[in-house]
C-alpha cells in the first residue's frame, strides 16, 4: 500500500508538470533536498539543516511555532469575521450579536478568534521568557531579540485594537482608560490621543481607526516582522543550544 503510494509519488515527481512547478525532480540526495528548500519561495528562508538538539521539546517548547500557528488561526478567522462586520456605530455591536446568535457557526468563529487572541498573547509572553532564560538574546541573536520585542508589542496592539471592535461597554471603557493612559505622555500625549481616536471621544472615528489598524496595518507589520524573525533564526545559526543540551543530559 505504502509502496504503491510511494511509486505513484515518485512517478508524479518525474513528470514535466511537477518539474516545471518545483524546478527539479525528486529530492533524493542531500543536494537536491537542499535545493528543494532554497528553490521554494515559501521555504527558502527556512534552514536546510537543523541540529537534532534544537528540535527537542525542551529547547524551545515550540513556543514560537505555537505563536505563529495561533497568528495563522487569527488571520483565517479574522478574515471570515470581516464578512459580517461593519466598523460603524451602531452596526458594529449588532453585527457582533448577529455573529453570536444568527449567523451559522458565527459564535464558533468569534470564540475561536477571541480565544486564539488570548492564547497568542500568553504564548508570545511565554516564548519571550523562555528565550530570555535560555540566554537567547546574547550575540549573535541581539537583533532578533529586538525584532521579537517589537513583535510582542505588535501582538499587544493587535489585541488592544481588536478589543474595541465589539463596541460594547467593556470595549468602550477599556479604550477610554487606555487612551487616557496615552494622554499622560508628556507634551504630545493629548495630540497622540486625538490622532488615535480621530477626535476627543471614543466615537465612530475611533472605531474605524482601530478597525483599520487591526485588520490592515498591524497584521501587515506582523507578517513582515515574522518573516524577518524566522529568517534571522536561520542566519544567526539556529536556536541557542546550551552545553547541557549537547551533553544529552537535558
Amino acid at each position, binding site marked *: 500500500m505504502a509502496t504503491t503510494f510511494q511509486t505513484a509519488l515518485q512517478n508524479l515527481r518525474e513528470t514535466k508538470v511537477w518539474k516545471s512547478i518545483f524546478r527539479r525532480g525528486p529530492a533524493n540526495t542531500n543536494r537536491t533536498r537542499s535545493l528543494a528548500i532554497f528553490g521554494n519561495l515559501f521555504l527558502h528562508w527556512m534552514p536546510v539543516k537543523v541540529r537534532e538538539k534544537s528540535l527537542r521539546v525542551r529547547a524551545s517548547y515550540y513556543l514560537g511555532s505555537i505563536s505563529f500557528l495561533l497568528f495563522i488561526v487569527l488571520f483565517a478567522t479574522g478574515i471570515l469575521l470581516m464578512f459580517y462586520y461593519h466598523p460603524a456605530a451602531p452596526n458594529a455591536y449588532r453585527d457582533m450579536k448577529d455573529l453570536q446568535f444568527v449567523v451559522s457557526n458565527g459564535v464558533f468563529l468569534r470564540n475561536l478568534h477571541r480565544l486564539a487572541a488570548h492564547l497568542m498573547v500568553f504564548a508570545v509572553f511565554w516564548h519571550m521568557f523562555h528565550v530570555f532564560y535560555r540566554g537567547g538574546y546574547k550575540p549573535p541573536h541581539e537583533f532578533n531579540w529586538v525584532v521579537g520585542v517589537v513583535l510582542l508589542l505588535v501582538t499587544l496592539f493587535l489585541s488592544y485594537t481588536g478589543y474595541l471592535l465589539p463596541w460594547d461597554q467593556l470595549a468602550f*471603557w477599556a479604550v*477610554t*482608560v487606555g*487612551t*487616557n*493612559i496615552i494622554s499622560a505622555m508628556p507634551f504630545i500625549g493629548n495630540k497622540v490621543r*486625538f*490622532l488615535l481616536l*480621530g*477626535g*476627543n*471621544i471614543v*466615537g*465612530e*472615528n475611533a472605531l474605524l481607526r482601530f478597525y483599520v489598524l487591526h485588520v490592515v496595518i498591524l497584521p501587515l507589520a506582523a507578517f513582515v516582522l515574522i518573516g524577518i524573525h524566522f529568517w534571522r533564526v536561520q542566519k544567526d545559526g539556529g536556536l541557542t543550544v546550551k552545553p547541557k543540551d549537547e551533553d544529552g543530559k537535558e
Partner: protein
Amino acid sequence: MSDATNPSAGSPHVVAAGNSVSRRDFLNEITMGALGIAGLGSVAVSYQYFSPNVLFEPSTTFRAGNPDLYPVHSVTFLQDQQVYIVRMPEGFYAVSAVCTHLGCITQWKPDADMIACPCHGSKFHPDGIKIEGPAPRPLPHFSISLTADGELQIDKLQVIKPSQVLKV
C-alpha cells in the same frame, strides 16, 4: 577631453583638488536632500490628514434649565452631559463628572457627601477637590452662566477657577 581630466581648463564648475566634490557625490547629496525634504513634507501632510477638521461629536455647550430646579446644598448629576450642577449657599458651579485619573464617570454619593469613582476608587468633595487618589488632579470646574431667558448654560470647553461661582 572632459573637465575631470583637465583641471586647468578653468571651467567654473571644476573645484580645486583637495576640495573637490565629484559630480556623483554632488548629485547624490542633492537627491538625498530632496528626498529628505519630501519625506518631512509627507510626514507633515499625513499629520494634517489624520487630524479631523470637522468632528461629529456632541456639543460642548448646553443648557441646564432654570436655576430654581436646583435646591441649595444640592449636587445634581446630568447623565447626558457628564456634569454635576452643584448649588451651595455661595452660588452655582458646574463640576466635571469625568475622573481625572483615567476618564471613568464618577458617582455622587449623598450619604458620604462625596463624589466617588467606581473604577479605581478616587474620591472627591462636591466642589471637585480631591480627597484621595489615584486621581492626579481635582475635578475641573466648567464655565457656567445665565442666558438672557434665565436658564443655566454650561460650556465644557472653558475650564474656570474653582473660586468662580455663579450667584443667582
